[in-house]
């Protein structure tokens, strides 16, 4: 079947304003949007720029806005979309070219929350640092984030102030703060409790709507807030 794709194009080195190119191509019933983007790049316009890597919804490279919704191009079936399919880069991040956005700051904010296990005691020599199943469940829905940036791109608090850590970094922060094996809250509290930390979230829930992995960053932010309040009391 034939489908039409309307794709955002922008090369900051050559043009002042972005424009849209339309491609009508033959697609298979089983194709994802990424398959279609590949077909356009390989057979119609080799200058089309977009990121992709794993093709299995786990690397987070191909997050784009498809018909106004943040999606992973490799997981969204073309057959599930109606009419002309509009593909745009994630909002608010600076566009490097076409569907590729600058994400260096996004990852810098992630580094600020120290997304690794901080523990000041030596691990047991005969076994791993064990958790009870109940303790482990606390971080369910927190560790699955693939850092695609869909949530942060959809966050009005981030649009308002792009120094805000954003839902992705805060979700990852709770993945460790909520981990019973972690002892690093003291090292993270400075950034989490700052002007660019958890208090900037207005619980608008755009991040939850945008997450292609159906995670709930607002839940993580609210839990971080409760934890910070408890620590202060």
């Amino acid at each position, binding site marked *: 079947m034939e489908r039409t794709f309307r794709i955002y194009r922008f090369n900051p080195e050559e043009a002042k304003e972005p424009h849209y190119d339309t491609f009508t191509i033959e697609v298979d019933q089983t194709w994802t949007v990424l398959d279609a983007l590949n077909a356009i790049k390989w057979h119609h316009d080799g200058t089309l720029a977009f990121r992709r890597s794993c093709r299995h919804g786990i690397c987070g490279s191909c997050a784009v806005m498809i018909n106004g*919704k*943040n999606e992973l191009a490799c997981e969204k079936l073309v057959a599930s979309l109606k009419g002309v399919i509009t593909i745009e880069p994630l*909002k608010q991040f600076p566009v490097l070219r076409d569907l590729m956005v600058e994400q260096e700051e996004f990852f810098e904010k992630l580094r600020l929350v120290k997304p690794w296990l901080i523990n000041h005691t030596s691990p047991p020599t005969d076994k791993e640092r064990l958790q009870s199943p109940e303790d482990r469940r606390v971080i369910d829905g927190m560790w699955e984030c693939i850092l695609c940036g869909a949530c942060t791109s959809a966050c009005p608090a981030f649009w308002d102030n792009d120094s805000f850590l954003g839902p992705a970094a805060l979700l990852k922060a709770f993945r460790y703060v909520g981990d019973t094996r972690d002892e690093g809250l003291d090292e993270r509290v400075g950034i989490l409790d700052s002007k660019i930390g958890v208090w900037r979230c207005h*619980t*608008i829930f755009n991040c*939850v709507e945008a997450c292609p992995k159906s995670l709930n960053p607002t839940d993580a932010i609210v839990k971080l*807030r409760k934890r910070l309040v408890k620590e202060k009391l």
Partner: protein
Amino acid sequence: MRYRWHAGYVAWLLNRITGILITFYLVMHIWVIHHLAHGPEQYKQVMDFLSSKLFVFFELGIIGVVLYHMMNGIRIVLVDFGNSVTNHKTIFWVLMAIGVVLYVFCAWDLAVLFLGLDSAAGAGGH
């Protein structure tokens, strides 16, 4: 800039708008009350002006504005301090339904006045 319409976004947007309207109303309210300092005559003049149908209509509006801000405020407290992050949409619609009932209860007398249905009963009270 906007992402997509959904209950959480609409709730936040209306909270901002109603917040601004309430601030505006409070300033107006203080302006009206300050006429008390100028004596009963001036205050009566202002109150007569505010008794027009247009201002009764605005008052019907401000009841809705305050009720919305209040009900959504309860939702935000439940999200922040309760365990309502995952069911915030249901809570939004339940609170809005309660808000509508409260609106009817609170605005009934004013609506009667606005529609001129009170003249037969001779009731006033506002």
